């Protein structure tokens, strides 16, 4: 899973904020205009954003403009080629995402992308399950949308299992339903869908309805990914997951974002999530 010899081009652009709205408690949806990025974006790609306001004309010293210092990575959740925009779903968890939530339409952000390895596209006649925890749902909008728009797969062959802490964080499930995709929900507090972990839904599905799942896509918190990978292994199921990692550079130079991967015969090697991932095969990563 080394990066392909000719990776898709990467752009650094000032993307205009087209909309930035709250869709749940601490949950936001942002649309950014960046035609170059949109043109090359594939499901699974992520972008690396400067969340703060950086304008060459600012009287602030440069370090102050870049506060917080590092870019923040987000998966592309949707794209619209006609408008030249792409969308992200993000949760405010700290300073960077808080600042992002205060950026207004008309302002612009410094965006680097598209970055990383993409998902194996959904293929006709191979039923897939996408299992997501929280904002892990983001890349699956793009994944499903792209396959349907390209006519490569039918919504009937897709299942979304979507879990979150509480009902109000499940924003977006309608979008899948509108595409004709079957969605099952789970919440930790039982306010919507199944009361419990979303991986229990996967377990049930693999037991009761194995033909619905010939390939598995996973994105969410580490314990959920670990459990999903284990269930897939038991079931002899192939699939992919999208990982996170602290990413100073996002383009493979800093060596910070590594995860241990099984690479026979070498054994365990550290792979960079930003360029060898964020999408990995389910069984290749040794999750912490």
């Amino acid at each position, binding site marked *: 899973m080394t990066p392909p010899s000719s990776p898709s081009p990467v752009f650094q652009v000032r993307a205009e904020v087209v909309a930035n709205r709250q869709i749940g408690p601490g949950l936001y949806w942002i649309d950014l205009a960046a035609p170059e990025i949109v043109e090359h974006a594939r499901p699974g790609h992520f972008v690396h954003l400067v969340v703060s306001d*950086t304008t060459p004309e600012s009287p602030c010293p440069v370090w102050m403009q870049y506060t917080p*210092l*590092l870019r923040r990575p987000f998966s592309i959740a949707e794209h619209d080629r006609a408008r030249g925009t792409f969308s992200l779903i993000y949760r405010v968890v700290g300073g960077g995402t808080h600042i992002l939530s205060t950026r207004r339409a008309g302002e612009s952000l410094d965006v680097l992308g598209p970055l990383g390895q993409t998902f194996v596209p959904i293929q006709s006649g191979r039923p897939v399950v996408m299992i997501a925890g929280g904002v892990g749902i983001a890349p699956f909008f793009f994944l499903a949308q792209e396959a349907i728009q390209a006519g490569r797969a039918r919504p009937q062959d897709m299942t979304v299992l979507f879990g979150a802490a509480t009902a109000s964080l499940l924003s977006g499930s309608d979008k899948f339903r509108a595409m004709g995709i079957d969605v099952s929900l789970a919440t930790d507090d039982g306010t919507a869908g199944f009361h419990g972990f979303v991986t229990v839904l996967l377990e049930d599905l693999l037991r009761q309805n194995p033909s619905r799942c010939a390939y598995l896509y996973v994105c969410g918190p580490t314990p959920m990914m670990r459990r999903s990978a284990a269930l897939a292994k038991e079931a002899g199921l192939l699939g992919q997951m999208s990982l996170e990692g602290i990413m100073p550079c996002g383009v493979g*130079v800093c060596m910070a974002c590594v995860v241990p991967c099984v690479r026979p015969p070498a054994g365990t090697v*550290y792979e960079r999530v930003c360029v060898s991932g964020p999408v990995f095969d389910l069984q290749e990563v040794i999750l912490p």
Partner: protein
Amino acid sequence: MSRSTLTPDPRPLTPDLSVTIGSLRLKNPVLVASGTFGYGTEYAGLVDLSRLGGIVTKTLTPEAWPGNDPPRAAETAAGMLNSIGLQNVGVEGFIRDKLPYLQTVDTAVIVNIGGGPIEEFVAVAERLADCDGIDGIEVNMSCPNVAGGMDFSTDPRRAAQLITRLRKVVDLPLIAKLTPNVTDIGEIARSVEEAGADAVSAINTLRGMAIDVKTRRPKLGGITGGLSGPAIKPVAVAAVWSIARRVTIPIIGIGGIMSTEDALEFLIAGAAAIQVGTANFVNPKTGTDIVAGLDTYCAQEGITSIRSLIGSARVP
């Protein structure tokens, strides 16, 4: 009467940004720092590499090196900590996979080398000395992220030993990269100058640590790591200033540089060139933006050669 005296040329003179580091002439004083720019390829699509004064590659060890356990980075106030632990492709991997591309780029290529015992440094240096397309060797004596990696630049005698040995096998410009985690960086600089280094670069990262108070775990797999970014700039400027008081060889200033102003601060303090590190992650065009900024600054200030700025601080 020549035309030029009749109609004054409206274009200002192009300032001369070139500087020299030992026998190495750089087209401008702006380099990118080891470990923050990979091997050149990674940013090639985003940055016009030929505009840079030079590229310093990630520290090479004799063999490919796995590095430290993750997590390897944490953000701090106006800075970041890293404990990469010198993960690199090894000198043979570099020569095979990375050098061919670097040889095609119209900029100086400085290869940073590291290791545990002196013999490892010597082995890497000897191997590189055979290769074309390498313009200088920077010696990472100071990496705080590998066991024993700091000894060379905290003890002036051992620092001198290392440089003396390398000097014997390397004709290329030899640059000693110093750690700030010492009582007197000027003394270390002095000793490597005597041992034959052509230049020193300063600073590497400051030793630092951060703890996640929720889990009570260190934020780095390596427990402690190296602090870089704007937070450390004042420490780096002071280091350059101190070293300039002690040596006559050129100094390459590093630490927290994000803007043309930052670069000027280092030049004025006594640096002949500078390196952009962490800022590359933030804005890959930082280096080339600074080159353009220095050009504009010199033109505006009527400075014909940037060399006149080096060490030009006005003190009572």
